[in-house]
């Protein structure tokens, strides 16, 4: 038998042996040819060396202590995985229960009405004139500067008109029925509040 086995056949023999988990099959040519037997032994030892090197490489890179640390880390992680997630309350203290919708509507309505009434009163009454003493309000300074500058003249004219308008409003607001006038007398005016608030205690 002159034809020797090539490395592909060796590889195939090895593949079959490894794949089936059995020892390398005894090829008839290997039993007969000493040269091929020798070459195959060399091929086998080369493959064995690869495995030995791989194991040595691993042992050097991952020593036993590292494996022990890894094991405890795995168990710790398992424990953490099972622990239910902690929910952090935010805000820490629960908010007060919101007021019922009807109450909130009443509050908003009352606030809006008070604002409108206040705005109307502010337009109708010149509360500043009721106060005594010099005012620091800029519009008052315009009044004091009468004649000093031509720009203040229209403002004075406006003030005169306001007074007339207010008198007209007051006359219109007076009850026409005699029976109601007594009530009107008792009802405090906005000016009374302003005056009382400015009286030094």
């Amino acid at each position: 038998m002159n034809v020797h086995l090539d490395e592909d056949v060796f590889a195939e023999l090895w593949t079959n042996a490894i794949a089936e988990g059995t020892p390398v099959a005894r090829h008839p040519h290997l039993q007969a040819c000493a040269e091929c037997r020798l070459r195959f032994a060399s091929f086998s030892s080369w493959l064995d060396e690869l495995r030995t090197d791989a194991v040595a490489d691993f042992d050097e890179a991952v020593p036993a202590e590292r494996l022990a640390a890894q094991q405890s880390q795995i168990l710790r992680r398992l424990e953490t995985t099972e622990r239910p997630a902690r929910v952090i309350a935010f805000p820490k203290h629960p908010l007060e229960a919101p007021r019922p919708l009807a109450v909130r509507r009443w509050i908003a309505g009352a606030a809006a009405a008070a604002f409108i009434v206040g705005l109307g009163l502010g337009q109708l009454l010149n509360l500043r004139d009721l106060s005594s003493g010099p005012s620091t309000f800029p519009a008052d300074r315009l009044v004091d500067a009468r004649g000093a500058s031509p720009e203040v003249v229209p403002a004075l004219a406006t003030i005169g008109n306001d007074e007339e308008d207010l008198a007209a409003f007051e006359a219109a607001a007076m009850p026409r029925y005699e029976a109601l006038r007594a009530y009107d007398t008792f009802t405090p005016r906005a000016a009374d509040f302003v005056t009382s608030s400015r009286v030094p205690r």
Partner: protein
Amino acid sequence: MAGNPGREADGIAASAVKALQAEGRLPEARERYAELVARHQRRATRIAFHYVRDSAEADEAVQDAFVKAYSHLSTFREELPFEVWFTRILINGCLDRIKARTRRERWMTSMPDGPGGERDFGERTPGYGPSPEAVLLSRERRRQVAEAIAKLPDRQRSVFMLSHYEGCTSREVSAMTGLNESTVRVHLFRAIRKLRVLLGEDAGRAREK
């Protein structure tokens, strides 16, 4: 590769953990699962290391695989060996890591190694083993082997490592990788042939010395 008694023990332990989890007896389930971890940890780390070629990353991959296997133990079917089921989870995790690393390396540059090219302190620590020259030669040979294996296509590499390093049969490798048995054999054959081409001459030279 563990024999049948080991596999039976694995199956029993996995079923017990599954039952304990279902009953809500979690500390006991963990304790029982620790047996499985202890039994498969070394082999799992070796497989992961051969895949990712970095001890820290292999460590993380193994941890992730064990945690994932524990969390999904309810999907484990008893007719499949635990080892095979678990190894599949591990390999998928390793392949994901390799993909992520390749993507990272495409966009980022890593810091260079130390002056001697060392990777960690352990490699610089003197020992009482073989001579420095022998250690250096051995390390150089291992580096060449690792480089050659890294040059193999993914499937060939997986099949070669599982078959030759871990001693799995083609049927087991088929279950772990999802490849046909015949495909496993073809990949194994090609991997051996290619490695022989890549390392054959160096191996021959080393033996002559």
